[in-house]
């Protein structure tokens, strides 16, 4: 791949001055490829965990136990009312210092590294919104359906898993879609705690090579592409899950 494109981009730089250094210099290329992996892993992990947090949270929110509902309300308030950037710094620099670490002689290998904290922080951030999104979906499920499940002998958990959630999920998908798109873009803020994702890496590349414009273009195309793929996938899913005559 690299060999195929490097000549073209080197010539482009020499002829026109457009310096896409990540496509023709071995070291920068390897940094760029690493950044793709890190950002994809970060996005995938945050997406999955945030949806899980949303599903579990929405269930907990409707719990008959008062303390559980209070914990959920507190969680949502905390994560919805603070900026994700501040949350990242808080988790990494404050909570991160309270977790166990291994002395490596001169420095410590933490149990949870900056990538781990980014996943945790971003998942809980987007998860707080997902809880509310799923709650809206759950409230759209008619009471009659819920009562029918109860009269058939479903427990609260079983009714949630097999009756309410599958219906609620369909109603929630458009709003969820929105929130996940936002999450993909928010992952760039992990550069604040030195997670070598795309923004972090390209920032270093443009500082080393003085090619801000070119790297900005790459950054934009990268995220436009990623979000386009996500939106396309979510729409396909929405269509596949459509229940005729429902919603």
């Amino acid at each position, binding site marked *: 791949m690299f060999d195929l494109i490097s000549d073209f981009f080197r010539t482009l730089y020499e002829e026109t001055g457009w310096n896409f250094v990540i496509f023709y210099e071995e*070291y920068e290329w390897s940094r760029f490829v690493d950044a793709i992996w890190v950002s994809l892993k970060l996005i995938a992990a945050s997406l999955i965990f945030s949806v899980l947090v949303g599903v579990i949270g929405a269930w907990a929110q409707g719990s008959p136990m008062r303390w559980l509902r209070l914990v959920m309300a507190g969680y949502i308030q905390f994560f919805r009312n603070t900026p994700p950037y501040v949350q990242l*710094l808080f988790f990494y*620099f404050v909570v*991160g*210092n309270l977790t166990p*670490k291994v002395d*490596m*002689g*001169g*420095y*410590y290998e*933490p149990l949870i590294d*900056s990538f781990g904290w980014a996943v945790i922080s971003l998942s809980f951030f987007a998860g707080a919104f997902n809880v509310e999104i799923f709650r809206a979906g759950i409230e759209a499920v008619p009471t009659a359906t819920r009562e029918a499940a109860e009269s058939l002998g479903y427990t609260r958990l079983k009714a949630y898993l097999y009756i309410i959630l599958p219906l609620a999920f369909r109603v929630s998908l458009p709003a969820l879609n929105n929130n996940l798109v936002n999450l993909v873009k928010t992952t760039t803020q992990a*550069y*604040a*705690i*030195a997670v070598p994702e795309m923004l*972090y890496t390209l*920032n*270093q590349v*443009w*500082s*080393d*090579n*003085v090619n*801000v414009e070119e790297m900005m273009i790459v950054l934009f195309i990268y995220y436009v592409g990623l979000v386009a793929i996500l939106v396309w996938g979510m729409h396909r899913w929405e269509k596949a899950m459509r229940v005729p005559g429902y919603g």
Partner: protein
Amino acid sequence: MRHRVLAGVVAAVAAVAIAVTSAQAGEKQANKRFKQMLERGKVVVGVKADYKPWGFRDPSGKLVGMEIDLAQDVADTLGVDLELVPVQSSNRMQFLQQGKIDLMIATMSDRSDRRKVVGIVDPNYYTSGTNVLARKGAVKSWEDLRGKPVCGKQGAFYNKIVAQRYGAKIIAFVGNAEAKQALRDGKCIAWVYDDSSIMSDLSSGDWDGYEMPLPSEDDNPWGLAVPLEELNGIWGRFMSGMVYYWHASGRLIELEKKWGIQPTDYLKRMNKKFAYEHGHLK
């Protein structure tokens, strides 16, 4: 035939006239920013706000430091007001290109790729090397950094050098405050930065138990910069003169002392080189 000759002459004259006017226009263009500056009676200088003691904020929030003193010198010499704009390593050249600042004195290392983007003025006004701050005894040679996490600041060019030359795993943060906090938290074995800056940190008394254990690498002369198109105009030549004067008059050595910076051989050498011998006047 005569008409043709006449037409040729007219065309030639016109061509010359156009060439001359466009050359003059080019010259006017070259000094545009300088003239604007005099007209508005204010020079806008980009300086660091997080690089003690070159550019930082005092307890009242005012920007102070060695480079701010230099900026003040420039404004005083021009007889205009001074406006300071805090810049970051990662955006300082863009600020200059986009006209947000007239002059940049922001601890910038003088490198050939940067000379293509901004007008770096000769001579250089300071120099520094790359070194690390680490817990006492943790690091003994540059090779000790191989495979270990090393904190740095995003946008610093030596991140790449240390990563490539010694195989260090660079963890770069947005600002120095975060990078240094990460070092204190033990998230990395060392913090790679300018020896000059590390020296001033060590002398501040906040870093007991830490040291700068390595020989400095890569002498990086610092350059102040004007917009590229003004480099060979009045503005660039004027700033060349200012830097020459700062060296020759000992002003830089004086400021070094004022701000508690460890005296560098470079400034002494430059002072000796530029100070004019006035023996013939006796």
